[in-house]
């Protein structure tokens, strides 16, 4: 699968289709027969109460979990599962619910890891450094600096990310994903634990990425107002099952969704 194939998909057409995905861990069902599709260029949100299987869904999309059954159609190609490395190479980047940054490395280095797949110099050239390897480093450094500027990370460029506050770490993680210049960006609760201002900032970054860079965004978020504001379409999961999908206004009036959120029993 080449990146160019994805780039050929017109905006608004399906880029990922998930068909009847089920996933279980030793008898415990995390996902049951979930199907939905993501269109190129949209902001797509997955919502649902805790334990609904949202993060598992993202893990299926980027190949970290292998679904027990079901099919994934990615850019027109049907497959049973994804592989993390393949997903990364095909332009899928993600952030994590519990921040998964490289804590011993500086902000700059963390962002530079986003460029790893695009660096082509071999080991010997890297050891030699002077010449092509240096040129390549500088080229990617420039790319990363743009992300740094975009996310306002200049002042913490050299700080080890382990010592940054939570909100900034979330931002660095987004930066690392953006540095990959992804086609599809999977965001797992990017605004969890943030105050209103930080949430606004984050929303702005997400939307800018979507508008300016035309990145497809798949997002998990608990804050309903944010979700309703920024997403184009929403799918709702509960106990691993899909209980609704559609545009924000449709979801707002969907009875099953309201019941799930308000905890009304169905009998």
């Amino acid at each position: 699968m080449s990146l160019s194939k994805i780039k050929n998909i017109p905006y608004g057409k399906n880029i990922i289709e998930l068909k009847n995905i089920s996933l279980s861990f030793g008898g415990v069902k995390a996902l049951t027969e979930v199907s939905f599709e993501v269109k190129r260029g949209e902001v797509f949100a997955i919502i649902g109460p805790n334990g609904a299987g949202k993060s598992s869904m993202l893990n299926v999309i980027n190949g970290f979990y292998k679904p027990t059954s079901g099919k994934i159609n990615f850019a027109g190609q049907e497959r049973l599962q994804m592989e993390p490395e393949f997903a990364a190479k095909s332009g899928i980047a993600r952030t994590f619910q519990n921040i998964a940054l490289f804590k011993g490395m500086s902000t700059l280095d963390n962002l530079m890891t986003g460029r790893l797949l695009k660096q082509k110099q071999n080991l010997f050239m890297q050891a030699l450094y002077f010449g092509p390897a240096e040129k390549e480093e500088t080229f990617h450094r420039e790319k990363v600096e743009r992300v740094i500027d975009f996310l306002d990370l200049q002042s913490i460029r050299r700080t080890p990310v382990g010592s940054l506050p939570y909100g900034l770490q979330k931002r660095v993680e987004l930066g690392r994903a953006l540095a990959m210049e992804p086609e599809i960006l999977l965001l797992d609760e990017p605004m969890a634990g943030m105050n209103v201002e930080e949430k606004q900032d984050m929303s702005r970054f997400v939307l800018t990425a979507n508008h300016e860079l035309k990145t497809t965004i798949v997002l998990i978020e608990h804050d309903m107002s944010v979700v309703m504001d920024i997403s184009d379409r929403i799918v709702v999961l509960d106990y691993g099952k899909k209980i609704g999908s559609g545009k924000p206004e449709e979801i707002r009036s969907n009875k099953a969704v309201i019941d799930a959120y308000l905890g009304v029993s169905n009998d």
Partner: protein
Amino acid sequence: MIYKETGQYNSNYRSDHAIFPLMQDKIAFSLLMLVAFLFVPFVVDSYWEKAILVPFLIYSMAAIGLNILTGYCGQVSLGTGGFMAVGAFSTYKLMTTYPDLNIMIIVIISGFISALVGILFGLPSLRIKGFYLAVATLASQFFLVWLFNKVPWFYNYSDTGQITVSERTMFGVPVTGAAAPPYATYLFCLVLVVVFGFAAKNMIRSKIGRSWMAIRDMDIAAEIIGVPPLKTKLTAFAISSFYIGISGSLYFAVYLGALEVTESFDIMAISFPVLFMIIIGGLGSMLGSFLGAAFIVLLPIVLKNFMVDLVGLSAVTAKHFEITIWGLLMVVFLIVEPHGLARLWSIAKEKLRRWPFPY
């Protein structure tokens, strides 16, 4: 404010990413190199050579190797002795099989052979992690030592399993064997350490270095951004073993000249001390590898000379104290600065930047 960085601007990313971005560091390093290459060779005697400088350089090499694996890639290894033995015995076999091959080439080929062995023993690292891996690497340590002791081919069927180096020259000056002058062995090791030291630093600041660190800090996340775990870990094992192999080769050919595998590559003689070096020096720090090696080579000698020659204790009591103090220092060190000498150095630099002002 001798050590000030104000007024120094890096106007492009290239100079910003240099090994020594600051002018002061550049000057200090150049001076150090000048002294090391142009002054020390003229004054070095055989005590300084055999007891301090050559072991320091050789252990630095090993420490860089282990630091790549443990400090940068996060895979704790206790198999250093085994991999050094691979380097040493490769050198011996190559020397005796190809008497005309240049010693520098032999040393580097020995490094490559060790790298291959390193890849082989690195394979379990995909499944096994943390302390389990550390203990598992002991398997390679014990197996390799056993192998070199058991299979007579490795020591050319000599009666005892001892291997002895024969004389080899560089530019007409012997660098191995008993007749090698101190300056020659010293320079030979120094050149290798400087060249491969730079190569290591370059790898660390490039793609491969960031891949290693990504695996170290969070292997799952690394996999998801497209770092292939097995390949990256194996590269670390290979490069690390390459360095350790070269150090083993020098350890045999230049430093000891004759050795026996069971004793010279014992886990207590090599594996643990080299691990101490990188921990005391600083995990994941090039400077730390050197500082740690210096510390571990010098400390026993300083303690011994101090207690025996100055205080006048008997050799045995001094040794008992040495062991105790050595252990105490290590514990105190880990309590006070678990990030090692390299961190202390950067704190000192931080202080120097502001000196004479407290803040």
